[in-house]
């Protein structure tokens, strides 16, 4: 097993990104950072600071007004804020969608979807329609859908913001396991510091608009991380520091 860090596989890199919307709102300024394989980077910031805009730029949904992004957009994993499941498709149908859009043949598609559904713990719910799923289950289905692409880069846009605290902790734990298994380059957006510290290898703090990276923290804890890590004094100290940086960036 070779170490990936010394080859520096930059899966996603932002090079001096700036974003000013046509109405004159400057949302992002001088954003530069890289995310490599087997790295899980989380961006925390106050609401409205342009965190989601950053992901839209990474995915190509938006063109930045300055700078450039380097990423392979062929199989980019993007988990949205809402589960965005198609209500007329069952869980299986929804999970199969992306492979379908990428013209994967039916047998392989079904196999990939079943594996992803098993992986997120939705086995037995394949034939349920989204309207009969809870918020957490919808989010799992959405994760499974993205997993079928086996994406080398995974973008998460505040995916667990709408679920209750306990479900969120479970989903954090499962996301961490997926990261360890798949070794993707992960870029996660959230405003929950606990969520950020628990899952990430690195946390970036963004300032209020125009969003800039104002602080960067390496998170030293070993994987796999136990849920009780959240009560570790070192965890609390780091969270406190990030919280301070966040407040500094806010004012």
């Amino acid at each position: 097993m070779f170490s990936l860090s010394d080859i520096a596989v930059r899966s996603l890199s932002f090079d001096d990104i700036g974003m000013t919307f046509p109405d004159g709102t400057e949302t992002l300024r001088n954003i530069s950072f890289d995310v490599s394989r087997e790295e899980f980077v989380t961006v925390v910031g106050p609401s409205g600071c342009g965190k989601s805009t950053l992901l839209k730029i990474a995915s190509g949904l938006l063109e930045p007004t300055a700078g450039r992004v380097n990423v392979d957009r062929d199989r980019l994993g993007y988990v949205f804020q809402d589960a965005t499941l198609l209500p007329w498709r069952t869980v299986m149908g929804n999970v199969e969608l992306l492979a379908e859009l990428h013209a994967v043949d039916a047998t392989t598609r079904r196999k990939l979807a079943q594996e992803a559904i098993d992986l997120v713990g939705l086995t037995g719910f394949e034939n349920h329609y989204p309207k009969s799923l809870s918020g957490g289950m919808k989010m799992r289905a959405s994760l499974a859908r993205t997993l079928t692409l086996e994406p080398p880069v995974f973008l998460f846009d505040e995916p667990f913001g709408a679920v209750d605290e306990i479900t969120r902790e479970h989903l954090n734990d499962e996301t961490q396991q997926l990261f360890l298994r798949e070794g993707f380059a992960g870029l996660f957006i959230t405003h929950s510091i606990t969520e950020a510290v628990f899952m990430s290898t690195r946390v970036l703090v963004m300032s209020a608009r125009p969003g800039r990276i104002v602080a960067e923290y390496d998170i030293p804890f070993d994987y796999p991380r136990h849920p009780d890590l959240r009560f570790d004094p070192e965890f609390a100290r780091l969270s406190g520091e990030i919280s301070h940086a966040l407040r500094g960036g806010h004012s």
Partner: protein
Amino acid sequence: MTTVDPQTVESGSDRARASLPKGRDDQPVEVRSSSTKSGSLAASFLPPLFFGSVLIGVWYFISYVLLEESKRFLLRPPHQVLNNAFLDWEALSELLGGLWSSTKVAAVGLAIAIAIGLFLATIMSQTKIIERALFPYLVTLQAVPILALVPMIVFWFGSGQTSRVVVCVIIAVFPLIVNTLFGLHSAEKGMHDLFTLHHASRFTRLRKLMFPAALPAMFAGLRISAGLSVIGAIVGDFFFGRGEVGIGQLVTKYANQLQGEELIGAVILSSALGVAVFLLFTKLQDLIVGKWYDAGSAQPPT
């Protein structure tokens, strides 16, 4: 890219399952069936049945108490309507013949309206400029009283079945276009982003996202249009007054000849046709979108 080894997937799924939350989130949401089964069958059938008997009672009261015998032809009592319009074979066959003719006109008119409606809504959804160009004229067409158009329709299409169908189409097409267009635009932005991210073609987006998303609204339009096409068929027949005899011509004839029983019979039959068509499309909607469409999700929780 990571190759998924079945062995690791298996253990992964075990792990994922082991870590499933034990809270209420683990349970799927209970889905209420569309028809609330509160109360027994009797509770849902007795009130309308009771009201129906009251109505028939009032009817008898008007026929026998309020109207003198010499004026009773104005409103014949219910049993006479039953005897003379529905139990008399000659009268009944005439009524059913008219009903059948009007049903055919309504069906053909509705089918054409559906085709035109879906086509127009689809191209309008694809090209903003076409939507802008067409919309004012569609609203105008909707606003023109059909009576004012009748002479022109006769002028162009004669007074045969074609003209009846044209009236039907003009009346029925608007709700189909508007509702389908609304439905095509109803898919959430996030879903469109998803399709954009994965480089879906315009056609794929239309087929896999916009059309399915439009179905509930399309059915809402269809139910309105189906009722309107029945009205259109009867109104057309009524105005043209020639050609194959439909319910509209029968109504004119019965009114002119003071055949009160048959006149009421024709009214009952034509409203029954409207109700039947409405129920048919409600059932069809239930079959096609009922299992996934959550009509309540758009409303705030109570």
